[in-house]
C-alpha cells in the first residue's frame, strides 16, 4: 500500500442537508492531518442546507493548493444518498471509485408529473464495477443509531486508504459529540469490515394505468364562488371576466374530482375512464356547455 505520508488524493463527500456530510469531511481531513499531510476542504453552507445537495470536497497530499477538485481528477466519491453519488460521477477520474449508500431521498421536485405519476429520480441502482453500493443505513442501525450511516461509509472508505484504524478512531473522537463516540466507532468498524454488498433492491414502483379524463362545466349554473379555483391542486381553474370559471392548461388535470365534489352548484362534471393504451392521447377533454 502507498506510503500514507506521501499519498495525495481528491475526495468528495456528498449527501443531503442534515446527513452529516460536513462532519464526515472533517473526520477525513483530521486523519490526513495526523499523518503530517497538507489538506484543504471545501464545505457548503447557507441556502443549500435547506434540503438541497450538500457536499464537502477534500484534497490532501504533501502539498495542496486549491480547495476544489478538478474534473477528471476525483479519486473517491463517498455518497450518503444515491442520487447524490451519481451527481459527482462526471468528475471521477479514470481510476476513481465510489462508496455509495443505497439510501434514496426523493426530493419534492422529482414528483411534479402528477398526470402520469412518473418519478424523475434514478430509482434503479446502477451496477458498475467501480460503484460499491451498500446499505449504510442498515449498518448504522446495527451499530445502534441510523444517524451513523455516514461514519459507516467512512469505515468502508478507510479499507481503501493507507491510514491506521487508530488514526480514524482518534479523528472520530475529535469530531463527534462525546455521547455519540461509542456508537460511531461501532458503525465505523462495521463499515470497515464491509466486503461485498448484497445486491441492492430498488424501490418497487407501480406502473399506473393511463386514464382519460372528461371535464365539463355547466356555465349557466356557475355563480363564480371560486371554490374550485382555490381547491384545485393543479390550479387549472380561473374566474374569467364574466365571473364564470374556465379551465386553463387542461392537460394538467389529473382527474382527482375535487372540484366536482366541492362545487356547491353541481356545475362541474369530472369523468375518469380507464382507456386502452392505444386510445390514450394524453390530452384531457374540456368542454363548457
Amino acid at each position, binding site marked *: 500500500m502507498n506510503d500514507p505520508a506521501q499519498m495525495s488524493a481528491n475526495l468528495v463527500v456528498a449527501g443531503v442537508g442534515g446527513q452529516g456530510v460536513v462532519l464526515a*469531511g472533517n473526520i477525513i481531513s483530521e486523519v490526513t492531518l495526523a499523518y503530517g499531510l497538507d489538506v484543504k476542504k471545501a464545505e457548503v*453552507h447557507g441556502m443549500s442546507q435547506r434540503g438541497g445537495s450538500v457536499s464537502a470536497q477534500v484534497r490532501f497530499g504533501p502539498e495542496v493548493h486549491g480547495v476544489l477538485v478538478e474534473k477528471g481528477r476525483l479519486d473517491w466519491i463517498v455518497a450518503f444518498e444515491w442520487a447524490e453519488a451519481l451527481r459527482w460521477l462526471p468528475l471521477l477520474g479514470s481510476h476513481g471509485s465510489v462508496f455509495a449508500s443505497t439510501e434514496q431521498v426523493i426530493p419534492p421536485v422529482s414528483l411534479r408529473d402528477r398526470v402520469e405519476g412518473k418519478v424523475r429520480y434514478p430509482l434503479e441502482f446502477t451496477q458498475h464495477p467501480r460503484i460499491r453500493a451498500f446499505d449504510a443505513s442498515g449498518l448504522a442501525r446495527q451499530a445502534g443509531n441510523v444517524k451513523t450511516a455516514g461514519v459507516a461509509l467512512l469505515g468502508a472508505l478507510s479499507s481503501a486508504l493507507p491510514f491506521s484504524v487508530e488514526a480514524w478512531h482518534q479523528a472520530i473522537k475529535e469530531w463527534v459529540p462525546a455521547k455519540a463516540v461509542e456508537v460511531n466507532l461501532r458503525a465505523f468498524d462495521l463499515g470497515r469490515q464491509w466486503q461485498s454488498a448484497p445486491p441492492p433492491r430498488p424501490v418497487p414502483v407501480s406502473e399506473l394505468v393511463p386514464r382519460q379524463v372528461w371535464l365539463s362545466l355547466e356555465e349557466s349554473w356557475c355563480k363564480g364562488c371560486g371554490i374550485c379555483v382555490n381547491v384545485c*391542486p393543479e390550479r387549472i381553474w380561473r374566474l374569467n371576466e364574466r365571473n364564470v370559471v374556465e379551465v386553463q392548461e387542461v392537460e394538467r388535470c389529473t382527474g382527482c*374530482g375535487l372540484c366536482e365534489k366541492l362545487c356547491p352548484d353541481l356545475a362541474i362534471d369530472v369523468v375518469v375512464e380507464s382507456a386502452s393504451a392505444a386510445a390514450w392521447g394524453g390530452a384531457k377533454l374540456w368542454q363548457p356547455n
Partner: protein
Amino acid sequence: MATATKTRALLLGNEAIALGALHAGIRVATGYPGTPSTETLEYLAKIAPPSVAVEWAINEKVALDEGVGAALVGARTLVTMKHVGLNVAMDAWMTSPLVGVNAGLVLLVADDPGMHSSQNEQDSRYLGRFAGVPIFEPTDSQECYSFVRAAFLASERWDSPVMVRTTTRISHSRSPVHTEEPDAPERRSFRRNPGKYVMLPANARSGRLRFLERLPQMAEWAENHPFNQEELRSTAVGVIAGGAAYQYVRDVMPEASVLKLGIAHPMPEAKIRAFAGKVDRLLVVEESEPYLEDQIRNLGIPVQGKAWFPRAGELSPQLVRQGLVRAGVLAPDGLEPSPEEWPETVARPPVLCAGCPHATPFLVLREIGAYVNGDIGCYTLGAAPPLLAMDTCLSMGSSVGLAVGMAKAGVRDQPIVAAIGDSTFLHGGIPGLIDAVWNDLDITVLILDNGTTAMTGGQPHPGTGHNLRAGDLPRLDIAQLCRTIGVRSVVVVDPYDVGATHRALLAATRYRGVSVAITNRPCVQAPVKLFGRSYAVNAERCDGCQLCMNLGCPALGWNLTHPDRRIARIDRDQCTGCTVCAQICPQSAIVPTAAD
C-alpha cells in the same frame, strides 16, 4: 509508517479570521449574519473570553458604526458582514477613513461569487479601493489568520479601517493553521479631537486632504509588503492573482511564474512593472470583475484576463485550465474525465423544511391573489414551485419599499403585500413601513416571525431577548412596534392554523390603509429542532388529489407501490406534526400516528 501526531488545527477560513482577531487583542467584535461571513462571530463567541464583547448588531450599518466607536475609544475591533451587507454600511464606510481609528479596526467582507447564497455577486474590492483603505486578500485559512493580524497593525499604522476580503471558497474552506503568540496591544483611551472626529464640512475638507496625502505613502508601503510575493519560475508566462484564483493557478500550471497579490489595494505598481518585464506574456486570473486587470492596463502594461476567464460565476480549476489553454499558454493535459456514460441524476434545489411555518401564508396568498413582494431569507423559497407565491425580491428590507412604490404608482386590481421575515424587518424593513404609514398607503406587510435569523443558521435578533452570548435582554415586541409606528390594523396569527391564517390575511388585504399581519410560529430548525407527533396518510381514504403536495413539504411524497394512483405518503422521520397538510386534506386522509 508515519506516526499519527497532530501539530496543526484544522480551521475554517472564518474561524481562522476569528482566531487571528482574538490573537490581535480585539476587545469588540460585531457584525450582521450573512453567508459566507456568519461563522466568524459565532466562532469568536465560543473562543473569546468574556472580556471581549462579541455580539450581533441589528444591521451592517450599525455594526460598522459600533466598530468605529469602539476603535475610537481604543479597542481593537473586528466587524463582519457579507458583500451586500457592505452596501448597507456604505455611508459610514466611505467617511470612516477620514475620521480614522485610534485602535485597529478591521472589516471582514465575504463575497459570494457564483451566488451560492446571495442575490448578486458584486466584487467588494472596488468598495475598498473606493474608500481608499488597504485590502488584504487571503488565499487559505493560514493566511486568514496571519492576514487579519497584520490588518490590525496596518489599520493603526494608516489610521484607517482595513478591509479583509474573502470569498465563499476562502471563508468556507478548512485547512491547517499554525498559530503564533497573541498580541497584547497597549490600552489606548479616547482623546477629544473634534477637528478629526466630527465630520462637519470644514473638518471633512481637511480630513480629505490628509486622506489624499496618505494614499501615495500607502502605495509605497504596499510595494514592499511581504504579502505581495513574486514567485519566479518559467518566464514564458507570468500570472498575477490573489485569493482563491491564486491557488487554482498553482494547481493547474505549477510551472508558471506568479505575482501573488495579498494586498488588493493599493496596487504595487513598481512590483507589477518589474514582474511584467521578466515574463514574455502577462495574464491576470481573478474571480468576478477585472479589478486588477483594468488597473494594470491603465498603467500601460499589456495584460489579458477576462478575455480568457469568465466574469460571471465562481472560478474553478477547470475554468482556469480552460482559460490558460485558450490563451495558448498551457497545453491540454489529456487528463479527461472517465469516458463512461453515467446515468442522469436529479436536481435537488433547497426547499422549505418539513413543518416550516412559512408555507401556509404563501399558500394563502396565492389563493387570495396579490402582488407579493418578497424579501431575503428562507422564505424567498416561497417563490419556487410548488408555492410560486412571490413576484419580486430585491435586497434586505426592500419588500416594504417595493410595495409602497407599487401603491404610489396606483396599483388597485389586486392587494399589494410585502412578505418579510422578523430579522429582515428589524434590519431594514422598518423605515419602509414608516413611509407607508406616513403616506397613508394601501398595503399589507406580512411579517413572517419565526423568532430567529433562520437562513444563516439561527442567529438571535432584538425580538429574541438574547444575543450571541448575552441572555435575558430586553425583548422587542414587533406588533407593538408596528402600532407605535401608526399601523392601526395589526393582527398576530398562528400559521399552523390554516383557516385562521386565511381569514387574517383576507381581512388584512381588504383593510383600507396599512395593515400588518404577523405569523408567530418558531423556526422548526433553530435554535433546536422541533418535533411533534408525526402524521400519516390513510391509504384507504387518500384519493391522490395532490392538494397536500402544493405545500412543497419535503416530508410529503408519493406511495410508489399503490397500483392505481399516486397517493400521498408521509416520511415519519421528517414529519414535525405541524398538521397543516391534515387541515387542507379534502378527504381527511391525513391523521396522527399512534403515540409511541
